């Protein structure tokens, strides 16, 4: 795939990570499992994971804007996306997907959001990148594509091109 930034080349290939995650997750799926991607990178990752896991498995997307803990400091995010969970959350085995696990705050918000839809039987977390260091909450992923150490002055996140190809990207924090 063609991505403009050379940094991408130094990072793991997103499709490879997704294939590895799918292989690790698949044996543990039950009839009760549902897939939930977190906006925006997690939704993209979940869309790519879904056909590799089980195309018949219900899947949804979650926006955590209304549950973030930084509303007081930065207000509402410019682009709030609709949450779509076209299944009962009550009693389900939820596989929550995000692109990067870093401070753990987004996952905390996502769990609060999910519980407002019902009481899941369990929630497991799958991430493409487990960013090492600076975890601020007692949260860990159940499935990890790759664990990476990223310089403090940079963000790592998933990008998607016009053909829906995924790639990882490093961005300097302004």
């Amino acid at each position, binding site marked *: 795939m063609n991505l403009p930034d050379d940094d991408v080349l130094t990072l793991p290939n997103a499709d490879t990570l997704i294939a590895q995650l799918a292989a690790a997750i698949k044996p543990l799926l039950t009839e009760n499992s549902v897939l939930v991607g977190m906006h925006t990178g997690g939704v993209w990752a979940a869309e790519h994971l879904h056909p590799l896991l089980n195309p018949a498995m219900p899947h949804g997307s979650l926006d955590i804007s209304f*549950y973030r803990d930084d509303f007081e400091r930065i*207000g509402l995010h410019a682009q709030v*996306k*609709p949450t779509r969970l076209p299944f009962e959350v009550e009693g389900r085995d939820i596989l929550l997907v995000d692109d990067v696990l870093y401070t753990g705050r987004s996952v905390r918000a996502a769990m609060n959001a999910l519980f407002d839809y019902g009481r899941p039987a369990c929630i497991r977390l799958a991430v493409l990148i487990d960013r090492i260091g600076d975890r601020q909450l007692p949260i860990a992923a159940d499935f990890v594509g790759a664990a990476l150490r990223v310089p403090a002055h940079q963000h790592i996140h998933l990008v998607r091109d016009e053909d829906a190809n995924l790639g990882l990207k490093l961005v300097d924090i302004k």
Partner: protein
Amino acid sequence: MTLNPQLNTDGSLRHLLTIDGLPRAILTHILDTAESFIAVSEQEVKKVPLLRGKAIFNLFFEPSTRTRTTFEIAAKRLSADVINLNISASSQSKGETLLDTVDNLAAMQADMFVVRHAQSGAAHMIARHVAPHIHVVNAGDGRHAHPTQGLLDMFTIRKYKGEFHNLRVAIVGDVLHSRVARSQIHALTTLGVPEVRVIAPQTLLPTAVEQMGVHVYHDMRQGLRDVDVVIMLRLQNERMRGARLPSAQEYFKYYGLTQDKLALARPDAIVMHPGPMNRGVEIDSAVADGKQSVILPQVTYGIAVRMAVMSILAGN
């Protein structure tokens, strides 16, 4: 330095006082955010923690059921504490000025005022007066503006019609006295609706209404031809006494929406009304309860739109 008292210096929305002068991007952002709040109303727990610990005062100097209730529900679904004040019945009858009332409530750590007042400009006056951390939402001031109603109407139109750029919209009735109509017209033109029509007798139109970018029709049958959206306005009974109209019966004959008049609009046209309706005056019951009516969805969408407005203001 900004000339628009609703905006912060960075262009973000601080108060919502009128739709007039707001950029399209802000209107679209509110509608998009409201879309996300629709999902909250479908949750098992119909509440998000966004405005937890905030005190929102509903200051209603004029009676209202629908608007006040939906603002209250919206605030509660955002986890704010809501205090409803029906002020015509309290301090003002004892002679306290509007700004003294506001100062007292601000001293009770108010974070937001939702204001309904019979006087045009009341919400502006409060917005200019309050401390920088307090936000003001105009819930209707005199004949001037009712921006959240205008926005929920746009949300409803977008839900049913998808886009704005290919629509014909007709607003029918007492435009002269209607803050709702003014807010709708500003919103429709800002969002790019190419043809906005107003249909009313001359006595119920503001002078130079054409300057707001609308086409004027006095004949309802002509005006409804091929429209996608019909917005009916409430005929206020007191206008009858002001001799602007001969009688409710005659008004209904010429400007009441019946099935046969509605048949002139596009077959998939939707019928809207901000409420409260006068059945048999501006709208026939068969239309109000008919399959083209979206009057009750308007009320439901009003909650999500008001949640969007309050959460965007509180975060700016």
